[in-house]
């Protein structure tokens, strides 16, 4: 076969470049449909309607009134700030509670035992948030298990009011979101070579210094990605604040819910929804900036 004929042959057996592109587009279509139909379009619609109010003639006109209403009414403001502060607080608590757990599961006990404990951690997810929230009601209520026990052994004479307080709300929020902190932190800790800890100790670092200068900085990508997930779940949660927090809980999602389904003011509801979206995006942006992490590194 001459050189030329060989070349011809290769050209024929190689697939045309287009066929690859067609497959790629086919594979991307479901993702694109998902993004455009379920996320981008509804958000655009919400954005547009958040800038509209009904005028006296019953026509929809452009206005900033929905946003102005938010800034004028103090209760909206307070709820907004409280939701942000509590979401940050719950995220911090979730980190403080779960970091030792993640460290214990990855560095202290054997892999076999760790798998068993991780399974135990996963069980609450199997029953769904609603069921766990009702579980907490059974525990925390005035006639609940904890109060019953405390009175039985005589520590208190009358039940402590735990349910329908910020305390019970925080517990509910923590309980449903904690696991999402454990998993990413564990995956970074797993890749931490024990010899780094030994090297630091060899160079004269105390246990606390090793924790502060080696373990925490090393697991920072996992911590930040866990924190983002927990923060998003908490700030957008409705069940735990509504059921465990009761009437006084003042969670911003409840305000949105009320706008949509109690007062049927969809336009103001849309504006509130966008404010929440901007709040959570803003705080995450600040957190990434502050912790020196990059979104692509945290995401992986």
């Amino acid at each position: 076969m001459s050189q030329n004929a060989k070349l011809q042959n290769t050209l024929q057996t190689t697939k045309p470049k287009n066929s690859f592109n067609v497959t790629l587009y086919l594979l991307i279509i479901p993702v694109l449909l998902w993004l455009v139909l379920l996320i981008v379009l509804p958000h655009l619609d919400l954005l547009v309607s958040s800038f509209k109010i009904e005028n006296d003639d019953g026509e929809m006109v452009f206005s900033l009134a929905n946003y102005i209403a938010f800034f004028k009414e103090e209760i909206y403001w307070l709820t907004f700030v409280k939701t942000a502060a509590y979401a940050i607080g719950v995220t911090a608590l979730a980190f403080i509670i779960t970091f030792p757990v993640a460290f214990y599961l990855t560095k202290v006990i054997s892999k076999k035992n760790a798998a068993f404990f991780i399974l135990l951690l996963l069980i609450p997810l199997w029953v769904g948030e609603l069921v766990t929230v009702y579980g907490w009601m059974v525990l925390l209520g005035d006639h609940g298990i904890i109060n019953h026990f405390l009175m039985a052994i005589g520590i208190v004479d009358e039940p402590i009011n735990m349910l329908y307080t910020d305390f019970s709300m925080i517990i509910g929020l923590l309980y449903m979101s904690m696991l999402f902190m454990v998993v990413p932190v564990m995956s970074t800790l797993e890749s931490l070579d024990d010899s780094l800890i030994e090297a630091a100790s060899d160079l004269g670092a105390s246990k606390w210094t090793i924790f502060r200068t080696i373990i925490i900085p090393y697991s920072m990508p996992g911590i930040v990605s866990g924190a983002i997930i927990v923060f998003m779940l908490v700030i957008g949660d409705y069940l735990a604040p509504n059921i465990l927090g009761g009437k006084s809980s003042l969670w911003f999602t409840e305000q949105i819910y009320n706008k949509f389904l109690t007062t049927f003011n969809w336009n103001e509801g849309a504006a509130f929804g966008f404010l929440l979206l901007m709040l959570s995006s803003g705080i995450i942006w600040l957190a990434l900036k502050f912790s020196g992490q990059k979104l692509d590194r945290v995401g992986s």
Partner: protein
Amino acid sequence: MSNILEIKNLTKQFGDFTAVEDVNFSVKDGGFFSILGSSGCGKSTLLRIIAGFEPETEGEVIIRGESMKGVPPEKRPVNIVFQHLALFPMMNVRENVAFGLKRLKLSNTEIDSRVNEMLSRVGLEGYEKKDVTALSGGQKQRVAIARSLVMKPSILLLDEPLGALDRKLREHMKVELKLLQREIGTTFIYITHDQSEALVMSDEIAVMHEGRFEQIDTPRNLYKNPKTAFVAGFVGDSNRFELSRTEGDTLITNKGWSINKKSSMAEPKVLYIRPEALIINPSEGLTDVETFGITIKTILFDGSNTKLATTVTGTTEELLISLPQNAEFDGLSEGQTLQVGVHINDLKCY
């Protein structure tokens, strides 16, 4: 020179398994001491005991005359260069080297001057701000060594730090490490399974086998006068012959080769001859040389390391002979027979 490190009757057991068994040795101040052994012989465990990461089951580690019993790793005057270096990936070169000094609560100016001095000593000036993950293998090596040496340890422990490097770089770092040790005068204890690393760099080598020290000696003595069969087989290349019996001053191998050798041992079991100890076509005037005939089976060409695979004439014993690459032996070919001699001191029996 005084002893900077003394190890007395050191034993380490993991359950039923004895990793280190009754090891005794001492290292002179400023020396380069190597522990040579195959993987799993207990040498890393021994190093970890000296560094304080593993408690000893029995015995004692004494550094500068002080017992290290119960002293945690961060309080010991030793620093370790880990097998996989264990550089802190989230810090740059400067922060890595300064890590230990910061723990000493030194002033920033002193930390800066010591870090800069150490970095220039290992040839890494200008790399202070570089990410350690962006460095080459050899540069990482130097950062790891600088990070430990900047602490001015009494002893620097090195756990096969050259293992991950490619061959060329390893050859280069071997020489560099030796020169660095000479220059700064810190005592080095070097763990390796690579005999060439140990032979080139060390003042003294301990050969370790199954948790015990077989021999502690200078590189030359270890090679010239191995005390045990294990050392003879492990250090350098050797031809090994099983002996069936001795008749007076004659050793007889399993395959019927007999060679004259005054043995100091009553019942030697094995005979070792180094390929490079054999003299091709020995001249008449040499004394104490045993000569015998061989037949060339094949020539194993490997540059300066070329060997002749031969059989001893009249027997089936196989013998490897080093072949110098000079004009004298260029004409050798397969099937040829030759006279070969060996000095009786180079016949090692155990």
